[in-house]
């Protein structure tokens, strides 16, 4: 039961992060005028946002919100329904798998972990798309997207840490380490 005492915490720790993820999906679908090979950079940044918000001791964004954001991305990109939803769920799953260890990590270790995660997600995404078309598709845009997200990860981590007050949640949490 959500009472008035816990309502601000619920809003901050569940609803706002979910809206943030959905907002990043909308921003990624805007006509920024990026070149053809750079089309995956912004969607990969959304993947980074989901990773950061899911990799704590308790995920800030619920799994249904991650699924809904992926589905929204599928609707907006005219791709097959379920593709980006699977990518987002996979990111969430990887983040939840490493979450017990992140309490003792420096931010740079989390960065390396994200690089591994985006590589796994990227290969899975390419494989899924190639399976859908029954032929290998061009992997350059996906590689560029993964590299772009990996480079942007520290900025995303810093912004989300400040935005959602992550360094106040736990005393030994990774977010409290100065960047």
């Amino acid at each position, binding site marked *: 039961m959500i009472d008035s005492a816990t309502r601000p915490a619920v809003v901050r720790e569940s609803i706002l992060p979910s809206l943030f993820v959905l907002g990043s999906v*909308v*921003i990624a*679908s*805007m*006509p*920024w*005028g*990026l*070149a*053809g090979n750079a*089309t*995956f950079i912004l*969607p990969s940044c959304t993947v980074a946002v989901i990773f950061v918000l899911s990799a704590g001791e308790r995920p800030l964004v619920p*799994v*249904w919100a991650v*699924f809904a954001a*992926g589905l929204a991305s*599928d*609707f*907006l*990109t*005219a*791709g*097959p*329904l*379920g*593709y*980006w*939803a*699977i990518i987002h*769920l996979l990111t*969430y*799953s990887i983040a939840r798998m490493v979450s017990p260890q992140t309490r003792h990590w420096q931010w740079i270790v989390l960065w390396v972990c994200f690089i591994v995660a985006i590589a796994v997600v990227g290969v899975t*995404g*390419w494989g*899924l*798309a190639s399976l*859908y*078309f029954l032929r290998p*598709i*061009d992997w350059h*845009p*996906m590689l560029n997207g993964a590299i772009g997200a990996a480079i942007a990860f520290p900025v995303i981590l810093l912004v989300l840490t400040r935005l959602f007050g992550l360094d106040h949640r736990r005393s030994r949490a990774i977010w409290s380490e100065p960047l």
Partner: protein
Amino acid sequence: MRRRWSQDESETRRPKDRGGQFLFVLYFVCTILLVMSRLGHDTLREARAAFTDYATPVLEKASLPVTYVRRAVDRASDYADGVAEIDRLKAENERLRHWEWQAKRLERRLAQMRTLLNGVEEPALEFVTARVIADARGPFVRSVLVNAGTAQKIKLGYAVINADGLIGRTVRVGESISRVIMLNDLNSRIPVLVGPAGVRAILTGDNGPEPRLEFLSDDDNVYEDDEVYTSGHGGVFPRGLRIGKVKPATGKGFRVKPYVRLSQIEYVSVLFYDSPLSQAKQISGSQSLVTKPPALHAKAERPAATEAR
């Protein structure tokens, strides 16, 4: 001695199991949706059209600041290259003034020849201008969403252009939003003519920046920098819409470098072009336009008997 779960441990274990089960269910739902999308289920198509219709106001508002940012960036780069840009524009203006005179002269000759041949005048095309409000590019499609739909009398299959040339055609039309598939999309096939000789080919997209020219024969006279434009065959596009220039592909064959910068489209014009075949069907109703040829082995009618003299 068997260890019994304490009540606390079982309570913490149950939410985790439920969370894992829910995650598994979501993965299963995603797989089902993927399979249904592959099969082209109508329900998904209708759901997608409904979603984009509802999302139109949000996308329109959200894309406005993006448009301003892009214009600011373009303006800044123009200022940075100010002098060089002015010189380039002056030279281009001179060339265009010469071509303007040529075009008017050819137009007069064309009108005279049309009168001599008693040719059919092609009607002028009406169009509506729309703004790109979402860039829907991914591993599967190269498309954009524009803020015009059935409310502006747009239909499926209408050609979409801008000042530089052909962009693509409408593939889904909602009430106030349409999806435009670009000419470099994997599913795009456009009948074209190439060069002064008018060599016929099909422009095939592969999600790359430059679509391929296919169904060319070895003895076709196609050269680098030949102009490519729509042929009008099939009735999907009107004839003569400029597309791009021929470039040699790595390996065998040719690709086309589009005139339009497909990643930087802001405003488009949707041409109201209904193919002559569909127009004729509307006029004749249910009558078939194809008349059956007489049966090959039908007995010929005997001529009226005449007395041999």
